[in-house]
């Protein structure tokens, strides 16, 4: 979830809750005030009635002068001595069919005038006041909705504006490539935190870049400098092996040393090759017809294919010509095919090569299980099978990356398939 969305949600929820509470309180206060006001009116009506009765005016006479509905009757004994307020809801007498109920408030009291006891009920409708309360509530509600929307939008706008340097930084870090020697330049910002972030990221990337280059240089140097002594060791060992008079122990030691040296030598060669590809030392290209290149490669490897009695099925749906470096294409095909041969079944092995308009694939049966995809193209990954240098697939990946192609691996029905989209 985006930071903006999240903060907006919290702000919106809080605003809505606050406003809802506010409306509720306002509504209750209005109702309370309304009641008080009505009570006051009722009491003043009572005063007028009592005065009128005292003055000996017949109730029927002053009834018309007072706005409220008044019911007066004579009773024998006084049972009520204080003011009793009663509130009840009744159907609107003007329109009984409608749902509009009317809230009535009554003041009931008994008074003794000239030894006569009167019971008086003064009635007042609360509906008008309630209506006003409702109106106010609706207005406040509309105001609430509108202000929440406005707040929401405004917040978005401001946040987007405020956070824009942050997003700029983020997108620049995302596209940053350690291999390209580029310096990050961020959007100017007057927000301290972002400023600090940008400075930190700048320093960090600079540090990483320089470490990366030092490390790369170191690896290159090691590989290159190791090559000459390695070849000297290798040659001297070969000469040493020409001697005849070794005992079994010496013989064994010599063989082990020589094998390890050869392995190291090949490994080093592979690493140098990887570095050379990385350093773009294979730039000259030529028109190469893919199926022809594949056929040539298969011919070179014919011995191995025959030795394992592997059936090769070619499925050339299209003849495509690519502008590539011949050496790189050879290395790519070589590694793909060698893997397909090396890890193939000892019996009834199959290799299927498919060439389509924008891709080609090598599919082979194998004695090894599905390979863990995650580290598939890493150098010396943990899946490496003993005896392999662990560089073959990373060479494939390196070349594929060099040309901005794609390589995919899939495993189905015991068959491994490498597909390259060109």
């Amino acid at each position: 979830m985006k930071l903006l969305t999240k903060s907006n949600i919290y702000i919106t929820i809080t605003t809505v809750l606050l406003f809802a509470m506010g409306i509720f309180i306002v509504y209750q206060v209005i109702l309370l005030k309304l009641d008080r006001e009505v009570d006051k009116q009722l009491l003043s009506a009572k005063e007028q009635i009592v005065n009128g009765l005292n003055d000996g005016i017949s109730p029927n006479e002053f009834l018309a002068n007072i706005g409220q509905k008044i019911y007066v009757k004579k009773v024998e004994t006084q049972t009520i001595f204080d003011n009793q307020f009663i509130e009840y809801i009744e159907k609107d007498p003007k329109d009984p069919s409608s749902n509009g109920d009317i809230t009535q408030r009554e003041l009931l009291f008994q008074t003794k005038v000239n030894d006569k006891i009167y019971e008086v009920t003064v009635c007042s409708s609360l509906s008008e006041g309630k209506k006003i309360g409702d109106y106010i509530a609706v207005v406040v509600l509309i105001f609430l909705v509108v202000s929440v929307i406005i707040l929401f939008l405004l917040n978005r706008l401001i946040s987007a504006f405020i956070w824009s340097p942050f997003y700029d930084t983020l997108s620049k870090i995302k596209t940053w490539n350690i291999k390209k020697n580029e310096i990050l330049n961020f959007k100017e910002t007057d927000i301290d935190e972002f400023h600090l972030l940008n400075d930190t990221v700048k320093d960090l990337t600079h540090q990483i870049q320089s470490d990366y280059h030092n490390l790369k240089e170191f690896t290159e140097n090691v590989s290159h400098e190791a090559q000459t002594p390695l070849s000297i060791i290798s040659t001297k060992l070969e000469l040493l092996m020409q001697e005849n008079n070794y005992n079994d122990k010496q013989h064994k030691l010599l063989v082990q040393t020589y094998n390890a040296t050869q392995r190291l030598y090949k490994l080093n060669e592979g690493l140098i090759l990887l570095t050379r590809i990385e350093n773009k030392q294979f730039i000259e290209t030529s028109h190469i017809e893919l199926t022809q290149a594949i056929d040539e490669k298969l011919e070179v490897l014919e011995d191995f294919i025959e030795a394992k009695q592997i059936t090769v099925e070619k499925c050339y749906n299209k003849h495509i010509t690519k502008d590539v470096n011949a050496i790189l294409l050879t290395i790519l095909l070589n590694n793909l095919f060698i893997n397909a041969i090396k890890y193939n079944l000892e019996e009834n092995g199959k290799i299927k090569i498919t060439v389509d308009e924008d891709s080609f694939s090598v599919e082979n049966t194998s004695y090894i299980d599905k390979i863990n995809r995650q580290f598939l193209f890493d150098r010396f990954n943990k899946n490496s099978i003993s005896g392999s240098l662990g560089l073959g697939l990373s060479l494939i990946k390196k070349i594929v990356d060099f040309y901005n192609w794609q390589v995919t691996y899939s495993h189905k029905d015991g068959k491994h398939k490498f597909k390259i989209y060109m």
Partner: protein
Amino acid sequence: MRILIIEDEKSLREDVVDYLTENGYKCDFATTIKSAMQKLNDIVYSCALVDVGLPDGSGIEIVEHIKKNNPEMGVIIVTAKNALEDKLQGLKIGADDYLTKPFHLSELSARVYSVLRRRNFGGKNSLVFDGLEIDTTEKKVIANGNQLQLTKKEYEILVYLASNPTHLITKEALADAIWGDKADMATSFDFVYSQIKNLKKKLNEADLKNYIKVVYGMGYKFKD
């Protein structure tokens, strides 16, 4: 047969001289263009091994000199790895073959043999051993009077071994010679092994039992 080795790297030069001398060649060496030119003017060589990177210039100069004054002579140039330009230029001006550093000494010996054979030095078109004759022009192998039916790879392996008699040929050298660095080590060793097995079987059938000796873990030897 006399061979001139022009190489400034002492260690490599000594190894090459020793190895080729053991293979029955007479070897002289030079370390600079100047001394090489002098030797070339004084003595007639059958073949020269020329390193392109010399302290006083490019070995290409020597190749040009040889081709002008003694075109009959075989020339093999040695270049540092990846110096494609040197290689192409060397072949263009008439070098017979090239080797990139580092190389197996057995590979060098095989190349020297091949160049000399092509140039027809000593009238030798076949390798003759006791009961075994390898005709390199016709690519035929005669064992005790009968022609052996060998596959192309078996033949190549046999010639390679035979051009390095009495030497141990490592399986790496053999694999490199036949497939270059195109093949993966482990795969090619297996293949070399099976080829040698077949080759030995065919030689055995022709009553030539001891020509190829397997040196456990190391490689193979031709006629101990």
